[in-house]
């Protein structure tokens, strides 16, 4: 693919710049909700007490849509994803409540054996570290073939063909030879593509990508992100992109949910989030990244540390880091996620939303 792109000297006019540009060609979103998470709660029992790693998360993803989940480490974004996959180790973890509706049924209620065919089949996950996700003593064919064998019930030559096909789909050159290689023989970018091949081999409806490009170089990262978008436009899969980098969000996502301390603090369309962020945490996250496009002055920074989940401040957990002035008693009120504008949700609190008064009639407190 790389060679093909370079030999093309004709350049189509890129007149589509401006507000209506879809960054990767025409929109792939179809108006059909494929995954809906309702009030999902996951707790961990630790020696310091119960940790609510995921505290009432709700969102939905449409077919072909990319939802970004942004937050610091420890904000619960990976736990949410693992809960959806039912991969939370119990004990200490426990999915305490909520629903995960995938293709019309609640997958938290189905049996473990049914879940095995859903996991990797209808919904799959691309993990962060390709060196850890691949087993060093099996070759690529074994590892991609294992997923294909389980979900498509094929063996022998058919399985081999499907493996090569999956490797071609993630644009691995010379797929037949590469399939016989072991993970250590591949570069980091190629390894990440193999992990991607395992993820997409059974044409899932939802792909959960958990920081898949953190360990890659910039140019490799750009190619991998482009590849994910290509796969999405070919298969129509919904992608949930877990990241802490707003650059990836700007490039990839259609909608964004910002998480803080196990809860969603703001959720909106990607342009709305960048142009009119309401929550101070969102504002600070976007503002604290240096820009490549211009020389930035001193960076605004968020003071303090992310809170410890077993020792959360009562009420608004962002209040101690908020730059706004507020009354101590306002910080004790537990804020709710409300729809401030159409399709723009924010966790409304006097401590962390500057325009609180504008939206306060939408919620019954204060």
């Amino acid at each position, binding site marked *: 693919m*790389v*060679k093909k*792109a*370079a*030999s*093309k*000297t004709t*350049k*189509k006019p*890129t007149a*589509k*710049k*401006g*507000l209506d*540009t879809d*960054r*990767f*060609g025409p929109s792939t979103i179809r108006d059909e909700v494929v995954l809906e998470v309702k009030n999902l709660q996951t707790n961990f029992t630790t020696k310091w007490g119960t940790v609510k790693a995921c505290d009432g998360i709700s969102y939905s993803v449409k077919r072909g849509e990319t939802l970004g989940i942004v937050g*610091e*480490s420890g904000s619960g974004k990976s736990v949410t994803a693992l809960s959806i996959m039912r991969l939370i180790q119990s004990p200490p973890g426990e999915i305490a409540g909520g629903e995960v509706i995938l293709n019309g049924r609640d997958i938290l209620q189905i049996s473990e054996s049914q879940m095995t065919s859903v996991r990797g089949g209808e919904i799959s996950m691309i993990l962060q570290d390709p060196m850890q996700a691949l087993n060093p003593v099996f070759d690529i064919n074994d590892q991609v073939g294992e997923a294909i064998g389980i979900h498509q019930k094929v063996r022998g030559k058919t399985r081999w063909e499907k493996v090569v096909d999956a490797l071609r789909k993630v644009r691995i050159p010379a797929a037949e030879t590469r399939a016989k290689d072991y993970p250590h023989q591949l570069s*980091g970018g190629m390894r990440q593509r193999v992990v991607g091949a395992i993820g997409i081999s059974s044409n899932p409806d939802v792909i959960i990508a958990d920081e898949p490009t953190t360990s890659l*170089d*910039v*140019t*490799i*990262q*750009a*190619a991998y992100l*482009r590849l994910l*978008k290509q796969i999405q*436009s070919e298969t129509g899969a919904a992608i949930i992109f877990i990241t*802490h*980098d*707003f*650059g*990836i*969000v*700007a*490039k990839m996502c259609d909608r964004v949910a910002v998480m803080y301390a196990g809860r969603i603090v703001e959720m909106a369309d*990607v*342009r709305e989030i*960048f142009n009119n962020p309401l929550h101070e945490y969102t504002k*600070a*996250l976007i503002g*604290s*990244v*240096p*820009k*490549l*496009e211009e*020389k*930035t002055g*001193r*960076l*605004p*920074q*968020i*003071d303090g*540390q*992310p809170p410890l989940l077993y020792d959360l401040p009562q009420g608004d957990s962002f209040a101690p880091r908020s730059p706004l002035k507020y009354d101590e008693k306002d910080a004790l009120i537990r804020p709710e996620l409300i729809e401030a504008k159409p399709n723009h949700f924010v966790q409304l609190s006097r401590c962390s939303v500057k325009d609180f008064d504008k939206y306060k009639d939408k919620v019954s407190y204060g």
Partner: protein
Amino acid sequence: MTTKEKVDYSHIPPAVGCSNDGEPIIQVRNIRKWYQVNKALPFIGKIDWLKAVDDVSFDVTPGKTIGLVGESGCGKTTTAKMVLGLEEPTTDGEVPIGQIYFEGEDVKTLTNAGRKEMRRSVQAVFQDPWSSLNPRMRVSTIIAEPLEINTTMTKKERDTRAGDLLGEVGLNPYQGNLYPHEFSGGQRQRIGIARALALNPKLIVLDEPVSALDVSIRAQIMNLLVDLQEEHNLAYILIAHNLATVRYMCHKTAVMYLGVVQEYGDTEAIFAKPTHLYTNALISAALPSHPDIVRDEIVLPGEVVSPVNPPPGDVFMSRTPLEVRKNHIYTKERPPLVEIGKDHYVVETPWSTVTGHDLSEFHLSVDEAM
């Protein structure tokens, strides 16, 4: 720290883009680091060299930051290690010998006292704050360890100094009694910075200091580094692959590919007019800061070639289209850096805009990117 007599720079060989203005602390001239990969067979064998760094020159002046940018394997960390004295530059008989000068003196000919002085003046902060602090030492001991080795301070003085340093990097002095595991990633990186500051260094090598940290903590650490630089007139060598970080922190930038500097100069000059194809490709691959910023991506043909026995001429040649390669004049020798603007240098090649080559043919439009 002591006021020294004026340093004599007259004997230091000139290099493109380097001058002795600003009284540089470290001057790097044509250094190489070649690793021998195999042993040659008798009579017929040929030694394979992995050329990690090949002919790199730059100056580091007080109060300024120089950024080394490039993909993994481009030699930026090896270069920094040679400045720190952790790697010896290659001095094979057949290749011209490169030098590193510390305040005008060749580090190879330094006296023991001079070498000690250099080790105190050049410190490092590492990428991973989880593995660069000893988990069995208290934080105050970690910070005071360089003082114990390099100064004659008593235990009490060292502890006071450690407390001061903790305050300087934004931690509480009482936290010196804690162990590293009791801190978060950002706080650990602050401890690493405090340790580097302990001996009042003149230069700190920062090896990806923020890339292992959370986004909200990165700004804190970058601001802290900028503040400390202004306060102590520190020089930094920043190794990074995030171009936005480089633009924010660095005064000068060197873009490296396969051990060779491809574009060098004032950071703003480079970002205002990126000239080398590789620099353009790196910028085009960087993540945008707003969803409405859509960059045409430049996809280079070919793969990164192995640094073992790289081509004798231009190392970047294999990443260019065939028709450009045919007319390339530098197939036998390395192309020189040429000045194309004020404090802006680029390797002389057919595809840098110096020779009027149009970069647009490398662009991938939004449609093609699909």
